[in-house]
């Protein structure tokens, strides 16, 4: 069987997702912060840890993997091993596949598919309504503002947090702290509302996947979907990036997978990319001998554990999953 990824509004899928997140956050992996810091010290010199030594959960290892990839610069111009360049979409597909497999294992359900949050539908609502939908309730994924102390995800504990000011990853003492969100609190007109379906439609209309010189905001589907090339006039970031910014709190720094909404956002980003590929073909650029190292079609994607993949391995997701709907914009 192949998993079918569904909308987070599906109550059964949502309950399984929350349960699996909490279980992976509670189950300890056998890896300590000091072990991880020592193993990554040479390969990722920008990544430094402060605070207590403690054992990390499986969920924490996903947080660690993401912030390590983000700290691994590739070819200058702001690119890193997972962002701000062509590798962004395949790397996150690879990343979500690992979480999805772990969730299938802990749920005992090989058909479980990650849910997506179709944020552009909410972005079409009036700004004041966007953070007050049923999603942001205890029965959904918890409150949109302040500490997440209600609902199933209130059990999640943040143990690793990248301090935006120092750049250091703090290993927090004791049981850790609850998640924190500031959804829709920023009143700046460029950050105060979610992306819209019109903006997604512009990204779907881009004919190229990415373009030379492969900068964060190069003119292509990837640059627009990642959010460096705004689809909305007057914006400075859009789509994926704007969702991070709009939620704020733990969705801000490189440790943003701390909040499970990270995965709901990226599953929707992946769905939009899939919709683009259905329309434009399963193509990727740069090829083998062009563009920055680490972002080519045959570049090994940075992995902390388990098998590594290259972008060409993941262009077709049908061996693993499909989406219940590719109606994205």
């Amino acid at each position: 069987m192949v998993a079918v990824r569904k909308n987070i509004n599906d109550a059964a899928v949502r309950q399984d997702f929350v349960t699996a997140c909490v279980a992976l956050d509670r189950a300890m992996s056998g890896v300590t912060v000091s072990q991880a810091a020592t193993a990554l010290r040479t390969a990722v010199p920008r990544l430094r840890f402060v605070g207590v030594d403690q054992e990390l959960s499986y969920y924490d290892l996903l947080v660690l993997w993401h912030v390590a990839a983000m700290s691994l610069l590739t070819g200058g111009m702001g690119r890193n091993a997972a962002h701000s360049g062509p590798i962004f979409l395949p790397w996150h597909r690879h990343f979500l596949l690992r979480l999805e497999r772990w969730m299938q294992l802990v749920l005992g359900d090989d058909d479980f598919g990650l849910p997506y949050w179709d944020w552009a539908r909410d972005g079409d609502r009036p700004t004041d309504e966007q953070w007050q939908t049923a999603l942001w309730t205890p029965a959904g994924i918890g409150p949109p503002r302040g500490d997440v102390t209600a609902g199933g995800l209130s059990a999640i504990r943040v143990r690793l947090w990248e301090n935006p000011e120092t750049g250091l990853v703090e290993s927090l003492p004791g049981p850790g702290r609850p998640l924190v969100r500031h959804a829709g609190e920023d009143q700046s007109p460029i950050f105060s509302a979610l992306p819209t379906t019109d903006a997604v439609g512009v990204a779907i209309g881009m004919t190229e996947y990415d373009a030379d010189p492969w900068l964060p905001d190069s003119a292509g589907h990837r640059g627009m979907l990642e959010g460096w090339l705004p689809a909305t006039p007057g914006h400075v970031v859009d789509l994926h990036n704007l969702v991070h910014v709009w939620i704020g709190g733990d969705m801000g720094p490189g440790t943003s997978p701390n909040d499970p909404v990270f995965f709901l956002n990226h599953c929707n980003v992946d769905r939009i990319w899939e919709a683009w590929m259905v329309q434009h073909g399963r193509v990727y650029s740069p090829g083998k001998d062009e563009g920055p190292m680490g972002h080519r079609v045959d570049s090994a994607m940075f992995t902390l554990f388990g098998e590594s993949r290259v972008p060409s391995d993941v262009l077709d997701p049908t061996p693993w999953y499909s989406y219940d709907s590719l109606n994205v914009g």
Partner: protein
Amino acid sequence: MDDNPQKSENVDQCVARAREKIGDLASAFTHPISAPTGSDHDHHGDPTSTRRFRHNGHECVVETHYKITVDGKPFVGHVSVNERGTVHHHGLPNYAFPSAVDLVKAVLDAATRSSGVEDKLAYIYEGEAD
């Protein structure tokens, strides 16, 4: 949206399956992890942002290097300018700001969650430059 209470017995079962099915991952961290080919080993990255463009037959280069202090101390991290003229900082990696002033304010606001915890991991980095 339907009520969605967490059932502790379900979570407990899932925790047990995680340990059984995923197993101990410590072995993945017993040796240094390799960076992929093409990774930069420069600790801080280039602090100067360089934008190049042609205009009316002229080859133009705009280099930008910010000097920012907070309470008299250097602001940590590289503030870069992208091709569109907005500014960016590694600490808030999904953000771009219209100005460096907006950026510094946002980074300081986001850092208020710092735990200020006693550091027991410094020994790992002994002998390295900050």
